[in-house]
């Protein structure tokens, strides 16, 4: 009697799991390529400030910069405002734990109404501008990650959609796995390809679940935040974006007397340091620098809290307005401030950055393992998708080769070619892989390793590059990547990667027989 009663329940359960798998497959297969790109570049974006330092020449570094030097650097940047352009805002990035360099940014509106941005490196001892910041590799990786190198705001919205899609995949993955706890340690590498890759995929996803949920939610939110604010402003504030931003970000600019020179930055920084009890400076933002009613924000690093930052807001005249964020701030503001540290892993120094890097690479492999499940399921069913598989291998290998080529180009001084050449290499690899699918995958890994060895060797052998600890971190990452490629080339996996190719070949042959 109980068995009969169990059958409808079991059938319902099976149908539910089947629907969850269906959902997982639809979204996973539809967006796998873009998810892979965003995941892999995301792993490297964690170290974007360090990479920018690593690839730049003649960058003077210092662990701390005095307030006077910030004022000098910002004044020098403001003086570079071009004829007929309007200076929108100035930003100074504090010399800090991840990038001990003084970088200033000028955002301008051109005479035609276009947006223009220039970044300079400044000498921490004098505030003098040394030269424009040239970090093509960091820029390439970051732009691919946050916007897939598509025009604003659509690229960002697309990446936000991918974050939401990945969040949905996590949920459907959990719901499709009723024995999630019982299977927590299953890794049946001796069974069929499909079953083995399913276990790899499930172990990577289940054990990384807290990280995956946080990364995908925060990534989705960051991507579509602009859209959310725009809609809120339109609907809840009658289209008044300023009013919406005021509710979220605090005081906004008001019309006041014009300023002939830079706001009193040094005095403001000293005041902020005194109010905060000496917290280190992270960021200075001056909006409407020629308007005394504009807003000057001083963000100070507070490593003892997850939000990581307390901001002091002033008028450009030097008048203190309010403290924003940090301990004691409203829960909503603190929650918003936690999004970026949680997404980029900046809340725990280099230990947490290293963990985030490993987990991000695991997330990338999780995406790839999902595709392996599909390839092997189709092969097992007698409907192999050899073309798709070759294209996938070309895409993944080509992206790695393209980024390695960009790394080399940046080091040898051809940074302006990073984007076009890496794109050509990527597309060419996909095409070549589809034409020559039987070339062992480990050759692609060997090429990546060779390019990285060359880039690292040339950097170590060249003069002018920074030797700060943060630059050494990037050297360490390159060594680790080279070692990882070596495992792929020479390790046991090399045999499996070759047998995977022959399976593709046999899959094809089984169709023609």
């Amino acid at each position, binding site marked *: 009697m109980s068995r009969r009663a169990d059958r409808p329940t079991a059938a319902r359960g099976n149908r539910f799991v089947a629907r969850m798998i269906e959902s997982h497959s639809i979204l996973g297969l539809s967006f796998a390529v873009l998810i892979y790109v965003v995941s892999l570049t995301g792993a490297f974006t964690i170290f974007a400030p360090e990479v920018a330092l690593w690839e730049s020449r003649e960058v003077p570094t210092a662990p701390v910069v005095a307030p006077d030097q910030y004022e000098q650097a910002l004044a020098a940047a403001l003086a570079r405002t071009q004829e007929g352009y309007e200076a929108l805002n100035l930003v100074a990035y504090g010399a800090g734990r991840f990038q001990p360099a003084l970088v200033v940014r000028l955002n301008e509106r051109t005479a035609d109404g276009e947006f223009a941005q220039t970044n300079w490196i400044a000498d921490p001892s004098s505030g003098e501008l040394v030269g424009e910041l040239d970090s093509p590799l960091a820029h390439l990786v970051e732009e691919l990650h946050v916007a897939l190198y598509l025009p604003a705001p659509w690229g960002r919205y697309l990446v*936000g959609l991918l974050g939401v899609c990945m969040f949905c995949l996590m949920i459907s993955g959990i719901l499709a796995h009723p024995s999630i706890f019982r299977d927590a340690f299953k890794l049946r590498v001796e069974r069929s390809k499909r079953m083995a890759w399913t276990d*790899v995929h499930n172990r990577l996803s289940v054990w990384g679940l807290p990280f995956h949920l946080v990364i995908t939610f925060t990534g989705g939110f960051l991507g579509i935040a602009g859209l959310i604010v725009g809609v*809120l402003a339109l609907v809840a504030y009658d289209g008044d974006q300023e009013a919406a931003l005021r509710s979220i970000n605090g005081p906004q600019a008001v019309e006041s007397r014009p300023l002939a020179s830079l706001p009193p930055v040094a005095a403001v920084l000293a005041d902020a340091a005194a109010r905060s009890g000496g917290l280190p400076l992270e960021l200075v933002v001056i909006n409407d620098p020629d308007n005394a009613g504009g807003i000057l924000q001083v963000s100070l690093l507070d490593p003892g809290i997850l939000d990581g930052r307390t901001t002091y807001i002033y008028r450009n005249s030097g008048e203190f307005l309010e403290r924003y964020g940090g301990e004691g701030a409203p829960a909503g*503001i603190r929650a918003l401030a936690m999004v970026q540290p949680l997404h980029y892993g900046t809340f725990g120094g280099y230990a947490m950055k290293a963990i985030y890097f490993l987990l991000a690479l695991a997330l990338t492999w999780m995406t790839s393992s999902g595709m392996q499940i599909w390839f092997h399921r189709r092969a097992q*069913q007698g409907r192999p998708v050899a073309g798709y598989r070759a294209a996938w291998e070309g895409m993944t290998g080509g992206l790695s080769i393209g980024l390695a080529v960009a790394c080399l180009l940046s080091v040898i001084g051809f940074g302006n070619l990073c984007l076009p050449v890496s794109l050509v290499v990527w597309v060419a690899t996909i095409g070549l892989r589809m034409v020559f699918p039987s070339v062992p995958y480990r050759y692609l890994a060997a090429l990546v390793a060779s390019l990285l060895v060359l880039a690292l060797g040339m950097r170590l052998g060249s003069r002018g590059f920074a030797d700060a600890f943060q630059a050494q971190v990037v050297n360490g990452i390159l060594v680790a990547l080279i070692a990882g490629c070596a495992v792929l080339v020479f390790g046991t996996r090399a045999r499996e990667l070759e047998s995977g190719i022959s399976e593709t070949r046999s899959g094809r042959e089984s169709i023609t027989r």
Partner: protein
Amino acid sequence: MPGALPLWTAFALQLLAVSSLARARGDRARLPWLVLGLTLFVAALALVIDLFGTALGLAWGLTVVSLAGYLRFVRPLLVAPSIGVVRRVERGGADVPQAAVRRGPVVLRLLAAGPLYLLAALGIGVVLATRLPWAEVNRLMLGGMLVPVLWALGALHATADTRIVRVLAAPLLLALVSAALFFVP
């Protein structure tokens, strides 16, 4: 680094917890190992919360636990000659539940999962951001931050529900209800 010793201690506790849970899976006397494993997890989490505070401690504890779990699989993956073996006998994947019958093209499902459910999520988010009886900044944040979660849940429905009419109608209905709730004084 301040707190390095307690952090390493917490990590060690998590490694022990993982080992304990693995024993719970394989052993006949599962319950004691399960209880021990969960206790060790909680102890590790309590240690980092005590060290860093609640939010930062949870962030540390729940991130590092993934590393503890992954470490268990490094050796098997490195020493295995291959991930799986090629099976020549074709199977239909009997251990995978039968795929649900698809009704309606995937394009329509993706349309619902994308722009339609985004519209619904934004609608619900705006209602929460403007109607909750909280301080302005808190209800704005909750309403805004729920949008990606609601959108993801909507996408799940759009790609899992077998009835395409329901898939297309649900987000439109939610958007209409949200609009009605927003404009009702």
